[in-house]
C-alpha cells in the first residue's frame, strides 16, 4: 500500500494513529488527579514532539543510513528559523511561504557545508561539521547583528515588530502565524467529565508534516538510493573500489537531512515567531544526536520515539520538585522518606541534564541500538519463551505417540 510493504505500512499507520490521537493518548489522567502532572497533552509540548520528531527523522537519514556523525545539525535548524521569521517580517504571517523558504535556505546551506565537510569522513567529518555549526552560531550571535547589517538581531533574537513591512498582511488576518487565516494558536478544548483534551491547529499542522516526513523517509530507506547509503555505511572503501563515486550520494543524504532540519526550524518559528542563536549552539546539535541514538539510529521509528521520549521526560523531570517527591514517598517512614528525596533530588528539576547524560551513557554502553533494540530484545525474550514452551510441549507429546 502506498508503495510500502505490509510491515512498513503497519508502522506508518501506527505513526498516523499516534499522531492523530496524541491529544487523547498524552492526557490519560483526569485534570484534578494527582497523576495529572504526567499529562503531556498541551499544545506547546505536542508541537515540540512533532517538530523534534521531524528533526530526528532527518538526522537519522544521514547518521542512520550513511554512518556519518554530524555534530552540527542544529545550524540548519537555526537557519530555517531565521528564514521563516524573515518571511513573517517582510511578507506575511502565512506559514506556507515561511516553511518553504526555511527548507530552501537550509538546503542551500547544507549543500555548501556538506560539499566541504564530506571531503573527509569519520572523526574529521564530525569535527568539521561541529566547527561549521559553531561558526554559524558565532556569526548569528554577534557578527551578523551589527547596526549596518542586522540579519539575526543577536542576543535578543529575531522577532516580528509592529513596524515591519509585512507587505501581504491584511487587517482581517490574525496577527500571529496562520495558515490562510487559521491561527496556529487556535485551540479547541474538549472536556469530558474531568478529562480535558486540547486540539490545536499548530499541533495538527506539525503532525501532518511529520507524517509526510516519516512517509518520505520510509520510502527513502527502502529505495535503491537508501541501499546505496547503507553500502556507504557498511564499507565505503569497497564501494569506491567498485568504481562508484559515493560522494554525490552522501551529499544528497546530507542535503535531505539538512532540509529536514530546516523544516523543523521553520515549524518552530511558525509555532512561536522568534528565532535565537542558541538554537544553533552545539548543545542543540548534541540533543538531536541523543534523540536519534536513544530511539535507535538506523531504524524508522526510533528517532521519533527518541525525540518524544526526551522531550516528554525533559518536561516531566523539570516539573517535579521536592514537595512532589515527599508526596510520593509519604508511605515510607520519615527518615527513609527524607533519604529517598535526598537521593533523587539531584536528578530532578534543574538536574534533568544529569539524568539525560546518565541515561545516554547507559544506552550507548548497553543498548547501542536504542529503545527499538530494547523493544526487540524484550520481544525476542518472550518469543523464545513461547518457542521453548512449544518444544517442551512437543517433547511431552512425542512419547505418547
Amino acid at each position: 500500500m502506498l508503495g510500502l510493504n505490509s510491515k512498513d505500512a503497519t508502522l506508518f499507520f501506527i505513526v498516523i494513529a499516534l499522531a492523530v490521537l496524541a491529544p487523547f493518548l498524552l492526557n490519560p489522567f483526569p485534570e484534578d488527579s494527582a497523576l495529572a502532572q504526567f499529562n503531556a497533552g498541551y499544545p506547546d509540548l505536542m508541537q515540540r514532539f512533532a517538530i523534534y520528531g521531524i528533526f530526528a527523522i532527518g538526522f537519522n537519514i544521514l547518521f542512520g543510513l550513511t554512518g556519518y556523525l554530524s555534530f552540527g545539525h542544529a545550524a540548519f535548524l537555526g537557519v530555517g528559523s531565521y528564514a521563516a521569521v524573515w518571511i513573517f517580517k517582510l511578507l506575511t504571517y502565512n506559514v506556507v511561504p515561511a516553511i518553504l523558504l526555511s527548507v530552501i535556505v537550509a538546503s542551500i546551506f547544507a549543500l555548501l557545508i556538506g560539499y566541504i565537510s564530506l571531503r573527509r569522513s569519520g572523526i574529521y567529518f564530525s569535527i568539521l561539521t561541529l566547527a561549521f555549526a559553531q561558526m554559524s552560531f558565532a556569526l548569528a550571535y554577534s557578527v551578523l547583528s551589527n547596526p549596518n547589517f542586522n540579519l539575526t538581531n543577536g542576543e535578543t533574537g529575531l522577532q516580528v515588530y509592529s513596524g515591519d513591512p509585512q507587505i501581504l498582511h491584511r487587517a482581517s488576518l490574525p496577527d500571529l502565524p496562520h495558515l490562510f487565516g487559521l491561527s496556529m494558536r487556535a485551540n479547541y478544548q474538549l472536556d469530558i467529565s474531568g478529562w480535558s483534551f486540547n486540539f490545536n491547529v499548530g499541533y495538527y499542522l506539525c503532525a501532518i508534516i511529520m507524517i509526510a516526513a516519516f512517509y518520505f523517509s520510509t520510502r527513502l530507506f527502502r529505495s535503491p538510493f537508501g541501499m546505496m547509503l547503507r553500502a556507504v555505511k557498511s564499507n565505503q572503501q569497497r564501494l569506491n573500489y567498485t568504481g562508484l563515486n559515493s560522494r554525490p550520494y552522501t551529499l544528497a543524504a546530507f542535503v535531505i537531512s539538512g532540509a529536514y532540519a530546516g523544516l523543523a526550524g521553520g515549524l518552530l518559528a511558525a509555532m512561536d515567531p522568534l528565532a535565537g542563536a542558541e538554537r544553533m549552539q552545539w548543545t542543540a546539535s548534541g540533543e538531536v544526536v541523543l534523540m536519534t541514538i536513544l530511539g535507535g539510529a538506523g531504524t524508522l521509528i526510533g528517532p521519533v520515539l527518541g525525540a518524544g521520549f526526551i522531550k516528554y521526560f525533559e518536561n516531566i523531570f523539570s516539573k517535579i520538585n521536592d514537595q512532589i517527591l515527599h508526596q510520593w514517598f509519604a508511605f515510607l517512614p520519615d527518615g527513609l522518606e527524607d533519604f529517598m528525596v535526598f537521593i533523587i533530588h539531584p536528578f530532578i528539576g534543574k538536574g534533568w541534564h544529569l539524568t539525560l547524560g546518565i541515561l545516554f551513557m547507559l544506552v550507548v554502553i548497553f543498548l547501542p541500538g536504542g529503545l527499538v533494540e530494547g523493544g526487540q530484545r524484550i520481544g525476542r525474550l518472550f518469543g523464545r519463551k513461547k518457542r521453548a514452551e512449544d518444544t517442551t510441549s512437543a517433547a511431552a507429546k512425542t512419547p505418547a505417540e
Partner: protein
Amino acid sequence: MDAFILQVLNGLDKGSAFALIALGLTLIFGTLGVVNFAHGALFMMGAFCAVFLQKLLSLGFETTDETKTDFLGKPLKVETPYVESWFGPEIGASIIDWSVPLAIIFAIPVMIGFGFIMERGLIKHFYKRPHADQILVTFGLAIVLQEVIKYFYGANPIPTPAPDMFKGSLDFGVLFGFDANAIIYPYWRLIYFAFAMSIIAGVFAFLQFTTFGMVVRAGMADRETVGLLGIDIDKRFTIMFGIAAAVAGLAGVMYTPINPPNYHMGMDFLVLSFVVVVVGGMGSLPGAVLAGFLLGILESFASTTWATTTIPGINQIIIYLVAIIVLLTRPRGLMGRKGVMEE
C-alpha cells in the same frame, strides 16, 4: 612593533591552554585510539580542584571577638580558618593565598586517579567499538561531569585569585627598550605560559628519554608488534591516559586565576581544542602544541581593533576558518603522520 609583540603575548596564555588540552587529547588518541569528548570536562575538573582546595583551606570556625562590635552593638563574630589557628595567622593566611599553586599538588593524584578509573571503567570497553560510539559515550560522560559540578558549585563563575605576589603586571616593553607602559603583561599569564612550557617539555622528555616512554612510542606506532614482544602495552596506555588527564587538569588548575571557572568552561575549550588537534594533525604531539600556540596567537591578532573594524566579528570565527582551510588544503593537518585516521 610593540603592538605586534603585545598581541603575540596576549595569544600565549590562551594558546598555552589550547596546547595543553590538545596535547592530552592527542596522547589519548595516539595511544588508545579513542576520541575523548570528555577531555574538556577533565580540564574543568582540574579547575574545580583548585576551587575545592581553596574552599577547603578557607574553612573555619566562628569565634566572638569581645573587643569589636558589629553595627547592632553585639560582639562581632569573626571567622578564623583552621589553617590560621593551626599554623599561626601569618603562615595560615599565606597558605590560603597560595591555594592555586598548592592545588597543583592536590590535582595531580586526583586527576591521575580519575583518569585510571575512567579508562578502566569506561573507555576500555570501547576500543573495539566504532569511533562514533566513543564520541557519544565520552560526550555523555562530559555532560554528567559537568552537571555534577554544577550541582555542587552552582552555575556562576567562582573567583579563584592568584597569590598576591603575582598580582599586577610586568612592564614587558622596558626590558626590550620600548617605552614604558607600551607592553604591559600580567605576571600570572607569564607564569601560565612558563608552566605550560615546562609541562609540555616534561611530557616530551618523558616520552623521549625514558624506557617507559620508548615503549609507549613504540606502542603508538605499532601496538600489535609491541604486544607480541611480550609487553603489557594496555597497562602502559592506561598510565598514559592518567597522565593526559593530569595534563588537562593542571591546565585547568592554573587557568583559574585568568578566568574564574564555571561548569561549562570545559566544553567551551573542548570544541576549540578539537579544532587545534585537527589543525595540528591527528596523532602528532608536536603538531598539537604548535597548532595550539599558533591558533591562540592568531585569535589574539584577530581581536585587535584594526582586524575587527576591517572584518567585523573576525575574532569569533577565525579559528574555525583556519581549521576549514587547513583541512581542505592539508587534510592531514600541519604535522600529521601518514595513515592516522584515514579510513
